[in-house]
């Protein structure tokens, strides 16, 4: 059967390794990505207990370089990235003029004039266009889109540091949380940051394809679990990390999403959405993104209604089963008055009211690793 009507999916430079490993491949944001290898729960546990490696080459990777790079980025994102120390990264948001969230990139400062902007796959083209329009407006900065020329890996879990120190170099183990650096590896520069999307200690790497493939193969040969998007989602949900497109998007603002801590309003910078965000902050959010934990059997999934005394009061934006807790967990927007910890609510699981309770975020706190935060 021909499928010529469907646009061709992009493949990462590791695609053949995934196929050889027996990965199940699914379309995701225009890419053919591994969703699982041995199984979501096994991969999830490996990351919580040891280490797992993810191909995240679908993520957008833009280097912003030049004397005006810090200023350009400051005008684009909500967090004051111009205040970042060299060798540090920070989570941030890209907002529209109404304060809605266009993307939630991580921005790393390599040195005085070089930054790396990592955004979601689905938004890579839009983010690049947005930054480019700021650059074209006279900023002294150049944009280098490196999504095609590089691969990106996430190596996550309490043992990630040891595995990477052996594969790449001992400097890795000494990095602080949210630190970033460049290391020589296989005649190329390798970008390494101590960041991730699992709630565990871990690292993200941006490498030339041959270097990335070599690292992947060595890690897997040494026993690091190859992990797919399935485990990436269950891990980030346990860590209560929002997923753009589910929990946050242009119809949600940072304050209701619990992301006010990445909006810098006090440095006088004029970034997109600033005025709207200042107003939202002043009025206070009418609803809140809360963590819900099921008290009984059943799995709450994306889009299910949240009930209070039988009345619909909100909607689940991410729901699933927590392998660590052995119950269903969910992120949902509910009115501010219902968002207090301990508040009993329910989810409409296909006609059955499943008892839930508002719990503290995150659902699961990662174990060991780089526990010492930057001083």
């Amino acid at each position: 059967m021909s499928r010529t009507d469907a646009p061709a999916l992009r493949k990462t430079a590791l695609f053949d390794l995934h196929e050889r490993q027996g990965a199940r491949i699914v379309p995701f944001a225009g890419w053919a990505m591994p969703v699982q290898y041995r199984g979501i729960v096994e991969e999830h546990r490996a990351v919580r207990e040891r280490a797992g490696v993810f191909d995240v080459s679908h993520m957008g990777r833009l280097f912003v370089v030049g004397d005006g790079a810090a200023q350009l980025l400051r005008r684009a994102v909500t967090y004051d990235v111009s205040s970042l120390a060299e060798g540090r990264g920070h989570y941030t948001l890209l907002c529209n003029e109404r304060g809605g969230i266009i993307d939630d990139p991580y921005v790393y400062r390599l040195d005085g004039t070089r930054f790396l902007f990592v955004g979601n796959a689905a938004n890579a083209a839009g983010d690049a266009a947005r930054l480019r329009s700021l650059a074209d407006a006279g900023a002294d900065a150049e944009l280098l889109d490196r999504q095609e020329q590089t691969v990106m890996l996430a190596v996550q879990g309490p043992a990630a540091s040891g595995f990477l120190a052996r594969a790449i170099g001992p400097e890795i183990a000494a990095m602080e949380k949210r630190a970033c650096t460049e290391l020589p590896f296989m005649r190329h520069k390798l970008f390494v940051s101590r960041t991730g999307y699992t709630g565990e200690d871990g690292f993200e790497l941006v490498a030339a394809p041959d270097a990335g493939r070599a690292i992947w193969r060595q890690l897997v040969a040494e026993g690091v679990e190859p992990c797919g998007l399935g485990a990436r989602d269950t891990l980030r949900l346990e860590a209560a990390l929002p997923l753009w497109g589910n929990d946050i998007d242009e119809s949600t603002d940072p304050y209701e999403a619990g992301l006010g801590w990445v909006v810098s309003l006090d440095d006088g910078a004029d970034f997109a959405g600033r005025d709207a965000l200042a107003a939202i902050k002043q009025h206070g959010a009418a609803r809140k993104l809360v963590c819900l934990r099921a008290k009984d059997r059943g799995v709450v999934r994306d889009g299910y209604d949240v009930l209070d005394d039988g009345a619909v009061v909100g909607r689940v934006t991410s729901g699933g089963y927590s392998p660590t807790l052995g119950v269903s967990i969910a992120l949902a927007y509910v009115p501010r008055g219902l968002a207090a910890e301990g508040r009993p609510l329910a989810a409409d699981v296909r006609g059955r009211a499943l008892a839930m309770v508002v719990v503290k975020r995150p659902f699961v706190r990662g174990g060991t690793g780089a526990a010492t935060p930057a001083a």
Partner: protein
Amino acid sequence: MPSPVDRRYSKEHEWLKQEGDTAYIGITDYAQDQLGDVVYVDLPEAGKAITQFEKMGEIESVKAVSELYAPASGEVLMANEELAQKPELVNSDPHEAGWLLQIKLADPSQLETLLSAADYDAFTASEAKDAAIGP
């Protein structure tokens, strides 16, 4: 791996193994593989009637929820109680320890409407091909 020849199969991926006028029901290895990690199984209690090709329960995996359809009509004699504590048996041993229900068959001739192991394997092979991505 070919499906066991000692039972019959539905296109909804349940198997049925006849033992006299009773039968055991479960989901196939192909189905558990598609579902991924099973976390809850909701089954009718003993004494309930189930009707061939109609919904008889639900199975929740980490990935998704799926409906279970009765491969034959009958009365539920027993649900596999071990699955409440160990739903992963459906994944690790779908044809034996991971069985779902034992029923009293209402009409054994209904089994003629189910697939043989060979026909079921041909059916899943064509389904898998349709689901494959890319050229």
